[in-house]
């Protein structure tokens, strides 16, 4: 019944996201929208690094690209990634939000407007508060909110900020997140 998965991550999330992407079946039924912070001067190489182990294709989308199931869409360096109502990607170079571009909040908020209660949102390890507001919006719209177990996070700030703002559906370890995603149809 779900139509998309949106994942936000920052410091300490790279290995988690790699493990998740390497565990998905090749024919994963949903698109995976990735809004991940990267080091300021690392602008290229990230999508390649994620692709090495991922079972589904990971791409840095073009503006207006159609979102398709079974693919991972990584917000390009220095762009915000929005989801339009017609399920296309929209990119923006607007100012960073909470010092972040891509802004996890903005990807989550616009994905929520596009997919409403058919969206799964996952917040991973990170050293700031980005994503907390977006996850709240997602939950308010009836989506399913998952936060990585802060005890497992390399940096807990981001997951704790999310948990403070929203009563989430699940607090999961990486393995539990993977098991959950594997059950999706």
């Amino acid at each position, binding site marked *: 019944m779900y139509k998309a998965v949106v994942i936000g991550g920052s410091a300490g999330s790279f290995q988690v996201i790699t493990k998740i992407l390497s565990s998905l079946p090749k024919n994963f039924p949903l698109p995976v929208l990735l809004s991940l912070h990267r080091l300021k*001067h690392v602008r290229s190489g990230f999508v390649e690094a994620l692709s090495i182990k991922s079972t589904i294709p990971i791409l*840095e*989308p*073009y*503006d*207006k*690209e159609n979102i398709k199931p079974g693919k991972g869409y990584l917000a*390009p360096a220095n*762009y915000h990634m*929005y*989801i*339009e*109502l017609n399920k296309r990607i*929209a*990119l*923006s*170079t*607007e*100012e960073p939000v909470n010092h972040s571009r891509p802004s996890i909040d*903005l990807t989550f908020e*616009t994905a929520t407007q596009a997919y409403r209660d058919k969206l799964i949102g996952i917040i991973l390890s990170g050293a700031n508060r980005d994503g907390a507001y977006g996850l709240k919006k997602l939950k308010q719209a009836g989506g399913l909110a998952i936060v990585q177990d802060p005890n497992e996070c390399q940096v807990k700030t981001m997951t704790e900020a999310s948990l403070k703002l929203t009563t989430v559906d699940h607090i999961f370890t990486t393995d539990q997140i993977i098991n959950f995603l594997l059950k999706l149809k």
Partner: protein
Amino acid sequence: MTLSDQEVQFFVNTIKNTSGYDFSEYSEKSLKRRLQKILIDNNSDLLTLINKLKTNKEFLEKTVKDITVNTTELFRDPQIWQTLRYRILPKFSENRNINIWHAGCSTGQEVYSMMILLNELGLFEKAKIFASDLNTDALDAAKKGNYKYRFNIGYLDNFDKVIKENPFNYEEYNDIPYSKYFKIDKVTDSIQMNDFLRQKPIFRQHDLVKGGNLYFAKFDLILCRNVIIYFKYSLQNKVFKLFHEHLYTNGYLVLGMHETMLGEITSKFEKKGQAYRKK
């Protein structure tokens, strides 16, 4: 505060009916965000804003400026500038003139990047530089050619990659001093472009939505980077047609890193990375 789509539509209609500006083919998500930001910055609700737009022309002009996004950098995405340097600009070296249009130039950093590159290639004198934007404040900033230093320290890295280094030959290193093109003053936190660069471009206000060619010229090269991401698909196509019409055959259109042409118009260009050659 979250605006509904109807409220955004109401704003777009008001602007359209009271001025020559038309945002109806702007990408919805970023338009909504900009409008929300304007309401917060003005500490206003939508109805109050709409009434003020109808009665205060200056305020309307300011709001139109605030709607547009003006983020740009010197040599943003160095690999594109390396492509321009080694693959595209040399093709024009035998031309008598090289006409270049920066459409949506914002505060001008890429206009200066282009002129620096042309100068290094010995093509500066024969180039004519046209630069346009909707936002006249951005154009004024572009004419001044003065940028914050600390906030933009990445400019220097980009400059080194494009001007000093050669990605095709790592042993090559051209120690071109920054002062050849701009003056850095750390105390006043400023990067000031040199006068010989500032005096060259022909800056004009131009609205891509309205189309037309304000320069009455044809171009060898059009740069329009991170502009069309704010447009809907329909308007993107209109703009591509406009560019096609005003490019010479074998002229190039260069888009932003994550912008692309879709649909029928693609048959009229040959795509080479982020550069599109007019067939």
